[in-house]
């Protein structure tokens, strides 16, 4: 796929309001199912908030993944980084409220370092991002299992407020997710970094010729992605009361975050898409999951449907792509 073909493709494709379509699909599917199965209780504010609450973790990771995919890269180490964040947070805090802030700072610092490593491997060493981040993820997993075998330490009560606190009926994590999405959208749309990110992903050669330091932009995207993963680890540590080495892998955050970002309209070739699409994709997943639970579909069939939805949701607008796709 040469850069010229990609640029041409983005010019010719009409702008599809993917986020709006996904939200519409989610709302319709959820409502219809709730009414059809006689569980209209789910249509209340509480029901909707419950759906949103389930997708906070995936949503946070996906926000970060959006930046990386916009830069025409990818990050497969997020699942293990989430585990690292959760474990380090609870181990450093050891139930002591005074250690909360240092622990949070340490987790974010480690995440940033991992992101920088990913970024350097991809930019300076030109290793394919799939392999580079896969390798880093494996190293993280190994180091983590070597040091921590079970839930390590504990999170103090005051930190649990992060996951369990509410403003009225709305839990903090849901508010946090939307606030962060808003910040991300602002960065992407209204800052120079955002513009540079789109340029780097959409047409790296052109961006470089225009004077953009594409390596720096990609590195920054990777750091942002890893920070998001670290933040998710902190959230999970707060919710599960401590962190275990398997929380990241259990959630399949790596592949699902990529799926959700692409469903949301951010194309893998980089340069197009945004965070609202990602958020809409996450909400679609959550709403459909809730609908399947209402119908009473068993876990195995749900997995088949989930796979089908990933393909169908992307096929729904991808077929309009001119040119070849690998």
């Amino acid at each position, binding site marked *: 796929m040469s850069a010229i073909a990609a640029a041409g493709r983005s010019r010719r494709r009409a702008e599809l309001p993917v986020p709006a379509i996904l939200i519409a699909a989610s709302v319709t599917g959820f409502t219809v199912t709730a009414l059809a199965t006689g569980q209209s209780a789910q249509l209340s504010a509480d029901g909707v908030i419950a759906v949103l609450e389930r997708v906070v973790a995936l949503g946070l990771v996906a926000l970060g993944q959006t930046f990386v995919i916009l830069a025409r890269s990818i990050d497969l180490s997020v699942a293990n980084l989430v585990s690292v964040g959760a474990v380090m947070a609870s*181990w450093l805090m050891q139930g002591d409220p005074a250690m909360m802030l240092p622990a949070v700072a340490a987790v974010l610092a480690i995440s940033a370092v991992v992101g920088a490593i990913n970024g350097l491997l991809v930019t300076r060493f030109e290793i394919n991002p799939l392999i580079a981040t896969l390798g880093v993820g494996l190293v993280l997993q190994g180091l*983590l299992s*070597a040091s921590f075998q079970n839930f390590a330490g*504990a999170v103090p009560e005051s930190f649990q407020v992060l996951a369990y606190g509410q403003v009225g009926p709305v839990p903090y994590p849901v508010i946090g997710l939307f606030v962060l999405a808003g910040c991300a959208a602002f960065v992407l749309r209204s800052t120079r970094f955002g513009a540079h990110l789109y340029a780097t992903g959409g047409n790296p050669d052109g961006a470089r010729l225009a004077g953009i330091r594409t390596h720096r932009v990609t590195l920054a995207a990777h750091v942002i992605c890893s920070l998001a993963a670290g933040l998710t680890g902190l959230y999970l540590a707060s919710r599960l009361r401590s962190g*275990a080495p398997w929380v990241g892998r259990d959630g399949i955050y790596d592949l699902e975050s990529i799926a959700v970002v692409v469903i949301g309209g951010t194309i893998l070739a980089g340069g197009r898409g945004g965070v609202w699409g990602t958020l809409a994709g996450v909400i679609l997943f959550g709403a459909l999951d809730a609908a399947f639970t209402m119908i009473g579909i068993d876990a195995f069939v749900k997995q088949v449907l989930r796979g089908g939805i990933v393909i169908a949701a992307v096929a729904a607008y991808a077929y309009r792509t001119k040119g070849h796709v690998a």
Partner: protein
Amino acid sequence: MRIGVMIGTAAVLAVAAGGAAQAQSFDDPKEFEAQRALMSAKAEGPADKPWEQHYGSQMVDTAKYKKPGPYKLCFSNAGVGNPWRVVGFTTMQAEVDLHKADIASFTVADAEGKDDKQISDIKAMLASGKCDALIVSPNTTAALTPAVEEACKQVPVIVFDRGVLTNCPVTVVKPIGGYAFGIAAAEYIAANVPKGGKVLALRILPGVDVLENRWAAAKRIFDEKGIQVVGVEFTDGDRAKTKSIVEDTLTRVGKLDAVWMDAGATSVAAIEAFEDQGMDVPIVTGEDQQDFLQKWKQSGMKAVAPTYPTYQWRTAVIAALRVLKGEKVPGPAWSLPQPTITAETLDKYVNDKMPPLHYAMCGCEGMPDYPQRWIGK
């Protein structure tokens, strides 16, 4: 250069941290002795229905939970991600069918192996108002504790398979425990292998409480009896890996007297590793899966099968119903018998009409739709 420094720093931090990291100890000598004692104790209750038996006479008064039937039961399942859980859940559903008259609805939430999801599931089930009692099989002990504590405030909660770090549930149903499982297998090996004999220990993965207890118990016994452990390897529960590891170990040490395993799902793979090399099969420990029992019977090898009975899934439903009827239940811990299948009792359990990963200790022989519901012939 910079990368090397960064990776190195991260590695040093992690490893240094690891030294001080152990939070929960999996090697508790008191619990070890307690479980060992229970292995030879006599259980109260009907001898032909081990899922209704219990050790000790401690009961919990449940009069305050008494309600008129039929009841709406809710079940938060950690998942059906392995055959043990599949057999258990099938058995539980059969138990629910047995009590059709008493149960108005049986709502199940499958957490697909995720703590995060199970916490949300419990919250959602309670919010729906369709639960007179809540049965929980927690995905992990610590993470589910806050959710269970919240649930206790609304309905009676019965926990089984794994415990939680709170005393609020009405009762916690479990067989004797992980130490007992490890002891059964290790003691058989120690009794049948010469002193200084070589044992390979195969474990699924580190950090899972029940499995850690099994190994801790076995290690203690091997140390006591002077059995030489030539390797402790992790198989990820994968048959191909298990077989490869056994083959490589044989290359490394030449001969093995026994293979100790912390679960039986891949025992047959370990046995086949010997067969494929044309060697005699030594002692290999397993569990109550049919493929292991059948292999044991056909080959005439020496083996033992400790169990972690799936009939506890029946007990959970029975306990919930008793609680709602105001009848006393064993509690706060309901310890079920944990039989070990030996060469003498093998014939009772082996059944080649059942699928390979069917767990013989399910207590399902007399239940509705047996054997079709369990995919038997």
